[in-house]
């Protein structure tokens, strides 16, 4: 499989070597897709050449955004307006990094936390209809879950979907600018409809077109609902033990 990712990175399971020279594989390409970078982040990423690590700057961005949100969201020119620019400058350049660090799996969830919390807080503070805000975050969540489920079935969303979806960076900036201009409620309404149609139609179209054939027997939920340590823990040990103890399982 070789698709070109939003960041311009080629996908496919990257092969890496650890310090001892042992080869291992991981799905860094998926982590990059889960980030959901928009055109601006991707440009910054290309400029940095994938040299900047993603996690530390993102943690700083999360803290800064949190502080700015606490410092004030109510006024039209409140400090929180500047959070997206800072977050973008901090987290954007890592868009092309292979996300090979041992803790880089923290990047996508932190990114989602920044995005959803920022947008929801801004919306609640500026009289956006509350059900509409819920729907808006719901649309974004749909897109982010869909990206995960698709990469697992090797149905990578096309590059243009990420661009047209504006990316986390684009959405934050638009929300900030709309707040400055005093038109946040209308902007959120337009974004909800636009993104809802875009992500919904594109996703349903792709799935129904490719999905009628026999699929691989995967449970998309598996990672989603597994306890943190339980089976990964002693996966090998457990497999050995289970196999040795009973041949009653499906695969001995």
């Amino acid at each position, binding site marked *: 499989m070789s698709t070109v990712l939003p960041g311009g990175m080629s996908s496919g399971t990257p092969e890496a070597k*650890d310090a001892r020279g042992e080869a291992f594989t991981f799905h860094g390409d998926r982590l990059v897709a889960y980030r959901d970078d928009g055109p601006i982040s991707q440009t910054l990423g290309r400029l940095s050449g994938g040299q900047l690590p993603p996690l530390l700057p993102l943690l700083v961005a999360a803290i800064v955004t949190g502080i700015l949100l606490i410092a004030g969201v109510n006024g039209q020119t409140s400090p929180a307006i500047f959070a997206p620019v800072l977050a973008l400058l901090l987290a954007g350049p890592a868009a092309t990094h292979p996300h090979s660090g041992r803790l880089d799996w923290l990047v996508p969830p932190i990114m*989602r936390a920044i995005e959803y919390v920022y947008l929801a807080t801004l919306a609640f503070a500026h009289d956006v209809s509350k059900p509409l805000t819920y729907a808006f975050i719901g649309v974004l969540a749909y897109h982010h879950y869909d990206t995960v489920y698709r990469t697992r079935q090797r149905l990578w969303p096309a590059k243009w979907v990420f661009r047209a979806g504006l990316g986390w960076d684009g959405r934050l900036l638009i929300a900030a600018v709309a707040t400055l201009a005093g038109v946040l409620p209308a902007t959120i309404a337009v974004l909800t409809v636009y993104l809802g149609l875009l992500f919904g139609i594109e996703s349903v179209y792709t799935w129904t077109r490719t999905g009628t054939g026999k699929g691989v027997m995967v449970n998309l939920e598996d990672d989603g*609902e597994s*306890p943190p340590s339980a089976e990964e*823990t002693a996966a090998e040990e457990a497999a050995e033990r289970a196999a040795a103890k009973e041949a009653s399982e499906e695969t001995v």
Partner: protein
Amino acid sequence: MTLALVVATETVATASSPTAGLALRSGSVIGHLLGQLESLDVADRRVITRPDTAAELRGLGCEVIESKGLAEDLREIARVAREATEPILIVHGDVVAHREVFARLVLNSKAPASAAATRVKPIGDSPNRPVMRIRRGRIVSAGTRHHQVTDPNAMFRGVLRVGEEETGTLADVAERFAELADLPDGLTEISPVRILWQSPDEIAELLGEAESQDTGLPAALTSTPVVGDDAPALLLTGMVRSGVKVTARGSRELVCERVLDQAQADAAQQAVDAVDEDRVRLNAAVKNNDGFFTTYAVSTYSRFIARWTAKRGWTPNGVTAISMGISVVAAAFFATGERWGMLLGGVSLYFAFVFDCVDGQLARYSRQFSTLGAWLDATFDRAKEYTVFAGLAVGSTAAVAGSSVHGGDVWYLAVAALTLQTCRHMVDFAFGASKRRKAPEPLPVVPLEMPDDSMLDEPERAKSRPKGGGLGHLAVWLSGRSEKIRVFHWFKKIIVLPIGERFALIALTAMIFNAKVTFIALLTWGTIAACYTIGGRFLRSLTQPRAARIDA
């Protein structure tokens, strides 16, 4: 579509009639076997047999290939394999098995090759069936009369499936063995078992345990040794030695056994009759790794709903849609803002979750897997939960102020719950994607004529733990140890607030209290779960190797 090659070359020791012709209740062993394969849409079925027994097998209504000896058997198999574009099933004509055994190999198997096997431990010096050593589901070494296995832990049950991508290898293996069989000392006899780490004491100790445990197979079933040519075992050994990943498939509950005399045929018939095959299949349709609530409050009976829906020809996607529909109803009840609505909403939500489990069980039971189905299931699970959040938020505002259902404006809590749950899922997804897997090493390739298996992966001695140092390794070790204790096992499952527990928590808190309590409970438990999960995985990540170089 699969092609079946039935090898019926074994004869009953005391007579010259084929073992495949032994009588079962419903006819001959091979007739029964071919019927089972036909019912699994294995349209192309060919029987290989000796000239003197061919007449007896001609009446079966499928192609009979006459062959004079082992080398010719193998050449015929090579010829068929060379032309084949579909998976090939090689099976002894005297195998008595549940249909489900073949169904799993023919319909469910995606491995390059797989073989029916049963774990048996220990195995004596002169086993009556070909032995093998299995490690982590893969057959590491397989034996025949000419190939020794070190520390075997399983027996070959006479069925080998080769995926279409490996039929070429199968043909190569068959041709090579045919050459060897023609040479006077191409294939030498060797003692089938070599003991390396399985000390005699260990075996004696295990023996008592194994005898009491081994309920699945009556001893009479394997009491007669195989005497004739064994092309399937040779081919299995050849595939393993050619570096093909051969997985072991087997089940303690299901019968799959060669019968070599009438007493064994009778015993096999009895063993088959003693098992409720449908029940085994139904139980296998239930995921064995579910959460506490799902396991004890839903899966105990949802499998029967799954069977009921299967009998009526429902599709898993239809059941998914029903489940979605019920949760929309639940959300509507919650949105009424009345106590009766909360009660009915809670009950509906529970049933929405029951049907959520049924769709997966139905898919596995009736073997209806589709990409679309997997997506619908996962996406609708999220949609159900978040729709219910919205219903609860609407109801909380709609309720009469002062009533017990009134929780005030809780939309911000709903958004918080949605955000927390999505971020928690993202942790799971991202952690899964970042997990480092050892790059698969090519499997060892060993010359087919070599009698011993010392060039294959040697068995390891039992390892002692913990290995490595540091906090991360300690955490991994602790986590592994605690898994062995039932209470800890469930505690670890429950604390992460899996889907079953979430739905139960929503239903119960909404029925008893109101939406505000529901969201606060979800946020509190969810935060604890997130800390536990992230903390555990943080420590685990520290045990992972640092990346030195990336070739993207």
